[in-house]
C-alpha cells in the first residue's frame, strides 16, 4: 500500500548497559496501514514501541511522526500518536468517564469537544454500558478496551498497541481483534504481538524483529505468497541425478537431505501422482512422498531460532 509516510524510524539503537536491546531498527508506517510487529518475548518489541511513543529515549537514531521528530518537536509528534502500553495506564480509582475526560484534557482536546470525544471513543470500544463504573471494578477485557479508548480519544493518525490481547479470554481476544481491524479503517495502527493468527487476521504488513534486529519485513500478501510455495519431501532408494529431478514438471529447485531424501521446491504445476508415476516408470524406488506447507508459525520459528545465523536471517527463509 502506498501513501503518506506517518512514522519513520531510522537507524534506531538502544542499549541497556552492555545489552544491545535494539540495533539498527528501521521502520515505516504509511497512512491507513495496519502493521504487525512480531517477535518473541524480549526481542525488542516493547522497547521499540516505547521509543516511538516518546517514553524512552533511543541511544541513537531518530523517530519522526507525521514529519515531526519525537525528541525535537515532541508536542506535535505526540499529538499525532495514541499509545496503549503493554500494561494499560489506568487510574483504577476513576470511573471510565472521568478517566477518558482526563485523557482528553491531557491530549489538549478543547473543553467543548471533550464530551463528544469521550462518547465517540466509548462507542467505538463498546464501553457504553460501563461508562459510570470504576475502572478498578471492570474485567480485564473491559480494562483493555478502556486502554484502547484512551489511545484513540484524540483521533490520532497513528495508534500504537503493545500486545493488546495478552491475558484475555478467546472471546475477548476476538472482540479486541475486530476492534483493531476496525481502527485500521481510519487510523494507521502498529500492533505488537507474539500471537501469529492475530497478525494474519488483522495486519496488512508484517515486521518480524529478533534479537533487536529486523529479521523480515513484508506485506501480508507477500508473506502469503512466500508461504504458499509448497515443498515435497521424497525418499528414493535408487535416486537419479539432481538434474533429472530438477527437470521434472513443476519442480523449481531440489535440495539433497542425504540418505536418498530430497526436498523438492515446487510451484502450482507440480502433481504428486505424476511424480509417483514417473518414479515407478524409472525404477527410482519411491519410499516416501510427503507434501508440506510452510506455516507462518514455522517461518517465525525459523527466523527467531536462527540465533547463530543472525547476520543472514533472510537465508533461513528459502522455504
Amino acid at each position: 500500500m502506498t501513501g503518506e509516510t506517518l512514522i519513520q524510524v531510522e537507524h534506531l539503537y538502544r542499549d541497556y548497559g552492555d545489552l544491545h536491546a535494539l540495533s539498527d531498527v528501521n521502520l515505516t508506517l504509511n497512512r491507513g496501514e495496519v502493521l504487525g510487529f512480531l517477535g518473541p518475548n524480549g526481542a525488542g518489541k516493547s522497547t521499540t514501541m516505547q521509543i516511538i511513543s516518546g517514553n524512552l529515549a533511543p541511544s541513537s537514531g531518530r523517530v519522526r511522526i507525521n514529519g515531526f521528530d519525537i525528541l525535537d518537536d515532541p508536542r506535535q509528534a505526540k499529538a499525532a500518536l495514541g499509545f496503549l502500553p503493554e500494561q494499560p495506564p489506568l487510574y483504577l480509582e476513576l470511573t471510565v468517564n472521568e478517566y477518558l475526560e482526563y485523557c482528553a484534557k491531557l491530549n489538549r482536546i478543547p473543553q467543548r469537544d471533550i464530551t463528544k470525544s469521550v462518547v465517540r471513543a466509548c462507542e467505538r470500544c463498546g464501553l457504553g454500558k460501563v461508562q459510570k463504573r470504576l475502572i478498578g471494578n471492570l474485567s480485564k477485557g473491559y480494562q483493555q478496551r478502556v486502554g484502547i479508548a484512551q489511545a484513540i480519544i484524540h483521533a490520532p493518525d497513528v495508534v500504537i498497541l503493545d500486545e493488546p490481547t495478552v491475558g484475555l479470554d478467546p472471546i475477548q481476544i476476538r472482540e479486541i481483534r475486530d476492534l483493531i481491524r476496525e481502527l485500521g479503517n481510519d487510523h494507521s495502527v502498529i500492533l505488537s504481538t507474539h500471537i501469529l493468527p492475530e497478525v494474519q487476521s488483522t495486519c496488512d504488513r508484517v515486521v518480524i524483529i529478533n534479537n533487536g534486529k529486523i529479521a523480515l519485513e513484508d506485506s501480508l500478501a507477500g508473506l502469503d505468497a512466500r508461504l504458499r510455495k509448497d515443498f515435497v519431501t521424497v525418499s528414493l532408494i535408487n535416486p537419479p541425478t539432481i538434474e533429472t529431478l530438477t527437470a521434472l514438471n513443476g519442480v523449481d529447485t531440489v535440495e539433497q537431505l542425504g540418505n536418498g531424501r530430497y526436498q523438492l521446491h515446487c510451484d502450482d504445476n507440480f502433481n504428486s501422482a505424476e511424480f509417483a508415476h514417473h518414479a515407478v516408470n524409472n525404477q527410482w524406488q519411491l519410499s516416501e512422498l510427503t507434501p508440506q506447507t510452510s506455516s507462518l508459525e514455522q517461518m517465525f520459528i525459523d527466523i527467531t531460532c536462527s540465533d547463530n545465523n543472525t547476520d543472514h536471517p533472510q537465508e533461513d527463509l528459502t522455504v
Partner: protein
Amino acid sequence: MIIFSIAQRELRNMFNSLLSWIILSGISLVVFLILVTLVKSYLENPTNSLGGIGVTGTISSSIFYFCSYLFILIAPMLTMRSFSAEFKNKTSQLLFSAPISMTEIVLGKCLGLYLFSLITAALPVLITLSLAFGTQLDIGLYLSSLLGFILVTFTFITIGVFASSITNHIGLAAFSSIGIIIFLFWLVELLASLIKIDAIQRGLQYLSISKHASPLYNGQLNSSDLLFFILIITTFIVLTIRRLDSYRMQH
C-alpha cells in the same frame, strides 16, 4: 490549561485517599489540643509563656511554628505517591505519551499538592482565628507567621515531589523526602556550626530553611527570606523536571 487539569486530577486524587483524611483530622485534633494548652498557660502567666509577644505571638505564631514541624512528616506523606505511584502503576506512560511537556506535568502536580496543603493549612488558620472571638489579634504578626508557615509547607511539598520522582518505591520516596527536609531544615545549621571555615559556614547557614522562616514567625518580613523560598522551590521544581527528562534515558 493543561497544568490545571493535572492539578485538578492530583487534588481529587488526594481526596480519594484515606491517608489524606486521616492527616486532615489528625491535624485538627493536634492543633486544637495545642491551642487549649497554650491558651491555658497564657491565662495563668500572660507575661511570658514561650517568649512570644502578646496573644498572637504566644499562641498563633507558636501554633504555626509547631505546624511547620508537623509538616516535616505530613508533607512527605502527601507527596510520596505523586510520581512514585505513577511510575509503579505505569500510568506515567499516559503522561509521557501525551503532547505535554515535563514542565507542565511537574507544575501541574505541584500546583495540585500546593492547593491541598493550603486546605490542610486552613485548619490551623481557622482554629487560631477562633481566638479573635475573645481577644484582639495582631493581624500583621498573624499574617506574617501564616505566610512563613505556607512558604515552609510549599518548600516541603516541592522537596517531597522531587523525592517522589526519584523512585517508584512509595515508602522510599517518603523516607528520602523526610531526609532531605530534615537536612535542609536543621542539619545544615548543625553542620555549619561544626565547620570553622567562614565561607562554607555562611553558605551552609544560608541553606537552612528554619533560619529563613523564623523572622517570619516573629513578624519580620525580609525580601531576602522571600527570595530564599522562591529560589529553593524553583530549584526543586527544576530538579524534578530534569529527573523526569532523564527517566527516559535509563530503566
